[in-house]
């Protein structure tokens, strides 16, 4: 029936070839959909996911300790290696850092996003967008090195603290075991600060988008029904912002889990997961262990999202 209509229209439709092509396509929406979807699906399926699965497959092989050759035999012993004390500490260190960075990003991003949505005029809002996006226009490496200059022993922050006669505060902070160190740029504090700086935009934008969908009348309705601003925040605004916070935390959490440059440049050079992957696939040639390490962030994210869903983070979507 449709084909007959289409054929009739083809015969009837004269005009330029382009026009006839338009008519041909207009009458066959499914065909157009197919044309649009096949290339991206091929890309996503074969190149994008395919290479990921090829990598994950490697994690089920193991390396022969004598020859240093990869043995192509399906086994879980490489995963077992993740549970050695040294490797576990890498995982805990990275996951802990990712969690702290995510929490800090969310804490800083929420008020900024809230201000942008509720109070900023069009101009101020544009200015905020610019300020948030601007850092992303310059090289990530350059920005990390810039932070090294700020945080170094001879750097700007130390100098400012000395001028203010507050050097003792800085020294006190650096004395704190675990997170302290010889200087900010050689401590976990430094790593943390730079991670928060680098990933903050990825938290602000989703929260802003989520808050944008909360109409003013909903906040007024809450006040109207007797809720103080604090209660309104707790019962209405936060629950509705949570999908945005969840989306932002996926970015900040997984990006921190996978990063290997920041902890290498700034910090006490104890390895993070990304650095472990980098080391094992490079000099050590232990592709299976590198692949097994790569599975860790995926597993952590899967658990994280399952928990988030269980606690209703996406109910407001």
């Amino acid at each position, binding site marked *: 029936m449709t084909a007959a209509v289409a054929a009739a229209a083809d015969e009837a439709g004269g005009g330029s070839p382009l026009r006839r092509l338009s008519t041909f396509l207009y009458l066959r929406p499914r065909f157009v959909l197919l044309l649009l979807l096949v290339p991206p699906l091929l890309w996503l399926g074969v190149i994008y996911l395919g290479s990921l699965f090829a990598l994950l497959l490697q994690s089920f092989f193991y390396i022969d300790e004598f020859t240093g050759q990869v043995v192509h035999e399906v086994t879980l012993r490489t995963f077992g290696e993740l549970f050695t004390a040294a490797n576990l500490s890498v995982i805990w260190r990275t996951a802990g850092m990712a969690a702290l960075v995510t929490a800090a990003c969310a804490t800083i991003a929420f008020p900024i996003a809230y201000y942008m949505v509720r109070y900023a005029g069009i101009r101020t809002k544009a200015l905020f967008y610019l300020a948030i996006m601007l850092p992303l226009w310059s090289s990530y490496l350059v920005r990390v090195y810039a932070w090294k200059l700020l945080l170094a022993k001879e750097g700007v922050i130390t100098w400012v603290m000395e001028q203010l006669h507050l050097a003792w505060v800085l020294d006190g902070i650096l004395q704190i075991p675990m997170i302290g160190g010889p200087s900010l740029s050689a401590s976990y504090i430094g790593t943390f600060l730079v991670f928060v700086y680098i990933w903050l935009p990825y938290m602000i934008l989703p929260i802003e988008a989520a808050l944008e969908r909360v*109409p003013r*009348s909903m906040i007024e*309705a*809450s006040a*109207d*029904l*007797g809720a103080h601003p604090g209660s309104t925040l707790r*019962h209405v605004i936060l629950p509705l912002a949570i999908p945005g916070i969840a989306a932002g935390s996926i970015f900040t959490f997984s990006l921190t889990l996978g990063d290997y440059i920041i902890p290498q440049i700034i910090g006490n050079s104890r390895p993070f997961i990304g650095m472990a992957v980098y080391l094992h696939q490079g000099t050590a040639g232990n592709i299976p262990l590198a692949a097994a390490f790569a599975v860790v962030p995926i597993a952590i994210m899967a658990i994280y999202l399952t928990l988030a869903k269980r606690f209703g983070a996406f109910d407001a979507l």
Partner: protein
Amino acid sequence: MSTANSIAIRFSGVSRHFGEVRAVDDVSFDIADGEFFAMLGPSGSGKTTCLRLIAGFEQPTDGAILLHGKSMVGVPPYERDVNTVFQDYALFPHMSVGENVAYGLMIRRVPRAERTRRAVEMLEMVALSGMAGRKPGQLSGGQRQRVALARALINQPSVLLLDEPLGALDLKLREQMQVELKAIQRRVGITFIYVTHDQGEALGMSDRIAVFNKGRIEQIGTPAEIYERPSSAFVAGFVGISNILDGPVAQAIAGSPAAFSIRPEKIRMQSPGADVPADCFSAAGRIDSLLYLGASTRYHVALAAGGELTVIEQNRDAPDLGDVPQQGLPVRLVWQRRQIQPIGPGR
């Protein structure tokens, strides 16, 4: 209405300016306890701002607002004994219908069991029994409207504010909800303040109507007063169909150039040679166009003296299809002298 404690809301000299814009400009009125009070006007006339001033979402630039004799200046919405039904309903999408309705009680730390019980009662009252477990997203527009009403009434406010609550509903549902709203108001005995731009709603439901125009009140009165005795050309035109004659046309017909209005249904359309009783005015004219509406027909008649009048005739008799007045037919319009309403000069 004269004693202070029976006045629910008093506005005295209230203004609300947004920069240069005078959204509400020196408005004063009283609303009695238990009254169904409509604020009627076109968009931008200040009626919604007045409602928001009562709710506490806006603070007056000038003047005083009293709620049961207590000044509301500087009192935030969450400390006012007033609840609102919002135009977009503003239901919380992450809560169930039951949680939405019980929100005000939850905020007031009413125990969960009582909260649930009262929410169920409220939902029963608005004919939504058994819907407590659903999410607002699963309801139709009319059902959401009822949830918003139940949520606002559960706190038993002394005044309920309704901001064009039926605006988003289709005609049939709107008419049904008008009847239900009126019945609910009678049952709960709470003062209802109802903002609308729909004159039909205002006339049908309210005890009194305030007609707003450009931030001021043009007229306050019962629906019949507003309709039959409009005090200005604006009211005559906004409520009902505008039929205003003035100047030479008024002189020719009524013997005075002063403007007057006459409602279309008060006019009878007769043949040109018909007798005119002594207590009637009359005007000759010709049918310019007509609109057949089923129950009635609306004629636009061009007058011989100049100007135009709209006439509504009920189609009461069985149709004699060959004998329907047609375009171009000469007619004589007749109406009783006492039916005209003098119109003061408009602002």
